[in-house]
């Protein structure tokens, strides 16, 4: 490449480098690894001349130590990443349809400091080669010769091994203008240097991996191995004359070992400054709060001489015993030289306070060091928690320790150490290849796992109840059975056959028969009290939805007396991802549900609703833990349902089946069940309504329809028909089934719109297809028009006819709700209906304004075809 000495040359070079990088981006992992290896080998071979050049050019540091740093940058970095995948697909999981692909970032700008001018250049160029990035190096003017030479050696070896020409570049005549331009023109900046440089990098507008100043405080605890601790500090502090940013700047020693530590330092060739020598060295090392450039990387002897202090020539470190950790104390600063502060602390707490201040004032986020007996877990944990540093090294020299892989083999080897937000950095780890890649994640569409969850046992057929109950005694050996029912059923002898059967088997039993419609928490609490006193191992809930729901709630409170209904009733988007974990049920009692009406399907559903009578709050609970263990569907219990109940609960069954069939969660498992339920209702509800007990066959088919529809919506869930009906029923005291029927055909027209404002969100729900789904139902019921629309119209007409037959009024108004009352509650009902748990599974995601329109149409009994236009 041509020399880069001015802005124009730089811009030309950057264009060439971008071209080179485009080519490099197409290289395979094998090609890249070959280049990476050749470059590392070349850098490694040149480690001695490069180190000597660095010392000669900068006049700082120790050649032998710089040799180690170069060796480290070449060998450890290669070793760390030799097998790391950095090209193409990194990970793939076909089952989940996800994979990650590595892409290079492009052109990396690297700013290289004077303190590590060759090793950092080797480190950064190797990382860029491994990641297929181009790198432009901005050396420090004071070290440009050796930095450029290091880059050149890596570059030539890389090109010889097949890398594109111009993939590594450098500024021959560095200036701030060019450094800034390089940063602006690059795609990412690897900035190693002082705070000014790092800030400049961050303000360039390009993503920057910047690192910052360190002021590593060491604590030597009373329990530390003193010889190891002191010699580790000396080993690290003298390394390259103290220029590594993770080097120790101060040691805080616990009072009881202070003298011993001091003696060891002295015995190993460190010099303790006396009297005014401390101030002399302090003023030499620190000028106006900054470190004197002339002492950086100089030997202890040279610095002492500059300060006018006479010390032996082989002195390793100048130690100042000082008291203040305030920045007004020169020794409290980062000194970039073999000059060390030493503090005495009476307690470990005092030592922590000192270290905390030294970190926050001098090197937030960088490194802290601790020497301690590692059995002192509490102290170590406290130290780790108090130090705002991204590296906390224990029992090791911090310079060699902080750069990783020398004294700990999981700390990533790196010459660029992130300092986190404390140090104003974007990263808090040791920089590695993953920081120089853009990782693409390819995610393919996958369908959610679905399920079919039912009670363990569903027994049915007329007269099956005593046979099924027999199992409680003969198979399960239950001893104590608690029956939950309502007063009407109890007084009319419905409990008697159960009690007789239990007596016959010698099962002790008790009965709570105070359940009222829309069961209240107060009622459930009373039942639970009796239940807790009785301590049943089996609960039988006999009745309609109310008794079965109340039974479920009592079951929950009996098994888990401390449950919180607010938590349990928390809405969820996906029942598998809900925040609340429902408590495990069935540890104390087995739950048997015996329906006496054909409607709710509660005997096979995981749902229950309870109302707090004092506040009016309704808690809809939903969790498969609430699923009964056994359902006994015996039509003998249902023969004498009153007409109104037959009508309301019968149309409720139809709504369950219709909504489950068009739900976004509908599946093949639930579809068949739902279709069958619709047919049974169409075929048998009219007679069951008209003839009641006189047509036991119709009753029996309706019982099956109810349970089938329950099974369908227990797994496919419902939709906005129920959302609207729940609130309409609650605000205007309309029976649930009737409320469902009043909005049913409007909701169907609305859902069937092939161009909905918004569709429901679920991976299985691929596009709006509700019209087709309704047509499936129509055709299954023998309704076939000339096209889908006509078929759908036939279904609607048949539903209208059914409603009429079973005495459902034509509108909410006709049911007897006053217009002013309805309108007064409309907005609140709308918002609450929108927020209903059932809304989420609706095939069309509704707007509140749309729900309001549906309410209004259903109120005035408008032509349902208007709902198709919403």
């Amino acid at each position, binding site marked *: 490449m041509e020399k880069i000495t001015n802005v124009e040359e730089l811009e030309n070079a950057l264009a060439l480098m971008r071209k080179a990088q485009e080519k490099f981006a197409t290289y395979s992992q094998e090609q890249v690894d070959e280049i990476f290896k050749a470059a590392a080998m070349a850098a490694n071979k040149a480690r001695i001349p490069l180190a000597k050049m660095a010392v000669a050019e900068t006049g700082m540091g120790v050649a032998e130590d710089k040799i180690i740093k170069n060796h480290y940058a070449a060998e450890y970095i290669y070793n760390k990443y030799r097998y790391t995948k950095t090209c193409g697909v990194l990970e793939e999981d076909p089952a989940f349809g996800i994979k990650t692909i590595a892409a290079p970032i492009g052109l990396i700008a690297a700013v290289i400091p004077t303190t590590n001018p060759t090793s950092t250049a080797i480190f950064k160029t190797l990382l860029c080669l491994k990641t297929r990035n181009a790198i432009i190096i901005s050396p420090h003017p004071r070290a440009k010769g050796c930095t450029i030479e290091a880059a050149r050696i890596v570059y030539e070896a890389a090109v010889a091994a097949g890398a594109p020409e111009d993939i590594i570049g450098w500024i021959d005549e560095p200036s701030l203008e060019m450094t800034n331009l390089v940063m602006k023109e690059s795609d990412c900046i690897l900035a190693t240097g002082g*705070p000014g440089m790092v800030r*400049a990098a961050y303000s360039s507008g390009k993503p920057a991996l910047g690192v910052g100043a360190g002021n590593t405080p060491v604590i030597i605890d009373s329990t530390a191995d003193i010889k190891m601790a002191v010699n580790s500090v000396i080993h690290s502090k003298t390394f390259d004359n103290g220029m590594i940013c993770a080097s120790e700047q101060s040691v805080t020693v616990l009072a009881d070992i202070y003298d011993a530590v001091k003696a060891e330092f002295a015995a190993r060739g460190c010099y303790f400054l006396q009297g005014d020598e401390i101030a002399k060295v302090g003023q030499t090392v620190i000028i106006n709060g900054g470190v004197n*450039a002339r002492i950086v990387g100089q030997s202890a002897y040279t610095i002492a001489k500059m300060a006018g202090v006479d010390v032996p020539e082989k002195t390793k470190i100048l130690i100042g015993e000082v008291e203040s950790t305030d920045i007004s104390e020169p020794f409290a600063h980062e000194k970039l030289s073999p000059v060390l502060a030493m503090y005495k602390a009476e307690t470990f707490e005092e030592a922590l306070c000192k270290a905390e201040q030294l970190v926050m004032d001098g090197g937030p986020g960088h490194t802290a060091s601790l020497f301690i007996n590692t059995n002192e877990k509490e102290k170590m944990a406290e130290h780790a928690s108090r130090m705002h540093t991204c590296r906390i090294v224990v029992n090791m020299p911090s310079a060699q320790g902080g750069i990783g892989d020398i004294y700990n083999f999981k700390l990533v080897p790196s010459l660029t150490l992130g300092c986190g937000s404390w140090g104003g950095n974007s990263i808090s780890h040791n920089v590695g290849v993953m920081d120089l890649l853009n990782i693409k994640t390819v995610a393919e569409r996958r369908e959610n796992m679905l399920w079919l969850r039912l009670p363990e046992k569903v027994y049915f057929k007329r007269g099956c109840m005593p046979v099924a109950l027999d199992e409680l005694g003969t198979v399960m050996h239950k001893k104590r059975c608690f029956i939950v029912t309502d007063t009407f059923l109890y007084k009319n002898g419905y409990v008697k056959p159960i009690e007789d059967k239990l007596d016959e088997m010698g099962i002790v039993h008790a009965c709570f028969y105070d359940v009222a419609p829309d069961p209240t928490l107060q009622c459930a609490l009373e039942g639970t009290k009796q239940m807790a006193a009785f301590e049943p191992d089996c609960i039988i809930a006999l009745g309609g939805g109310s008794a079965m729901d109340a039974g479920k709630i009592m079951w929950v409170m009996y098994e888990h007396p401390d449950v919180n209904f607010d938590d349990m009733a928390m809405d969820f988007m996906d029942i598998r991802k809900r925040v609340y974990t429902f408590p495990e049920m069935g540890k104390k009692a087995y739950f048997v549900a015996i329906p006496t009406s054909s409607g709710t399907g509660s005997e096979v559903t995981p749902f229950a609703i309870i109302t707090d009578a004092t506040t009016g709050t309704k808690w809809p609970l939903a969790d498969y833990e609430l699923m009964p263990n056994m359902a006994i569907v015996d039509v003998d219990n249902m023969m004498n349902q009153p007409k109104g109940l037959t009508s309301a609960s019968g149309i409720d069954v139809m709504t369950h089946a219709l909504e489950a069939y068009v739900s976004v969660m509908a599946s093949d498992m639930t579809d068949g069940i739902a279709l069958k339920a619709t047919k049974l209702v169409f075929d048998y509800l009219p007679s069951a309504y008209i003839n009641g007990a006189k047509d036991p066959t119709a009753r029996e088919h309706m019982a099956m329809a109810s349970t089938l529809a329950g099974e369908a919506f227990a797994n496919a869930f419902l939709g906005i028909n129920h959302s609207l009906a729940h609130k309409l029923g609650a605000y205007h005291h309309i029976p649930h089934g009737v409320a469902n029927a009043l909005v049913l055909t409007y909701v169907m027209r609305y859902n069937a719109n092939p161009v909905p404002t918004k569709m429901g969100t679920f991976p299985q729900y691929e596009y709006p297809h509700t019209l087709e789904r309704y047509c499936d139902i129509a055709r299954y019921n023998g309704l076939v028009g000339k096209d889908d629309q006509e078929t759908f119209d036939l279904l609607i007409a048949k539903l209208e006819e059914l409603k009429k037959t079973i005495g459902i009024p034509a509108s909410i108004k006709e049911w007897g709700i006053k217009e002013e009352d309805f309108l007064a509650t409309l907005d609140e009902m709308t918002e609450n209906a929108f927020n209903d748990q059932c809304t989420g599974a609706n095939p069309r995601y509704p707007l509140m304004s749309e729900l309001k329109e549906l309410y209004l149409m259903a109120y005035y009994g408008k032509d349902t075809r208007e709902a198709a236009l919403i």
Partner: protein
Amino acid sequence: MANREIIEEKSYKTVYREGNVIVKEFTPSHPKSDVFNEAYIHTCVEEAGVPVPRIISVEPANGGWALSMEYVPGKTLEQLMKENPDKCGEYIEKLVEIQLEVAQHRVPKLRNTRYKLEDVINGMTEIDASTRYELLQRIHGMKRHTRLCHGDFVPSNVLLREDGSYCILDWAHASSGNAGADAAITYLRFCLDDPQLADTYLKCYCQKADMAIQYVQTWMPIVAAAQLAKHKENERELLEKWISVAEYQ
């Protein structure tokens, strides 16, 4: 014509009082643009509502140019400090308070301190390229502020009237930038003239400004370099020491 009372004489200018007017008369060799620039800066500051002597005219005089402004009666803080050495602490406090009030003003028409300093450092030959690089990098890393900076805020430039109100003189070096830089300049001037007062000043300033001493210190190598550019031999040793500060790495 009223009596002409010479106040100050320098190689490039003479300052004299004539009745209620102070005239700064520059020698013909003094760049015309400098005279107009000083008048411009001074006027900008005057318009911003800072208490300064009102500019009356800029006009040709004896082949050069003369800048006239109103005479403001009173004593400078420097005079007061000399007259009442025991009250030095109080006057320093006063100086700091006034400096902070000045820094409350924004005069966006003025040149930014950073660019001024960058220009000075770029043009210096007395320091090597590496040092210039580091100093420029240091400036570059500073936050971008736009406070009114006097640029030579020393006791001799602050005049107190008898009623206690103040008036600030000599706006030739004013700029828009970081208050910390302005404080660093004042601290440097104290270090050069009266080192004993320097630390008193810095502590007082940082306390009243609620500013970290390190922040002011970060500016010191930069302002020291700018001062070095004035080529005062007696200041050289101290300034070179101040400039030679490495950035932490």
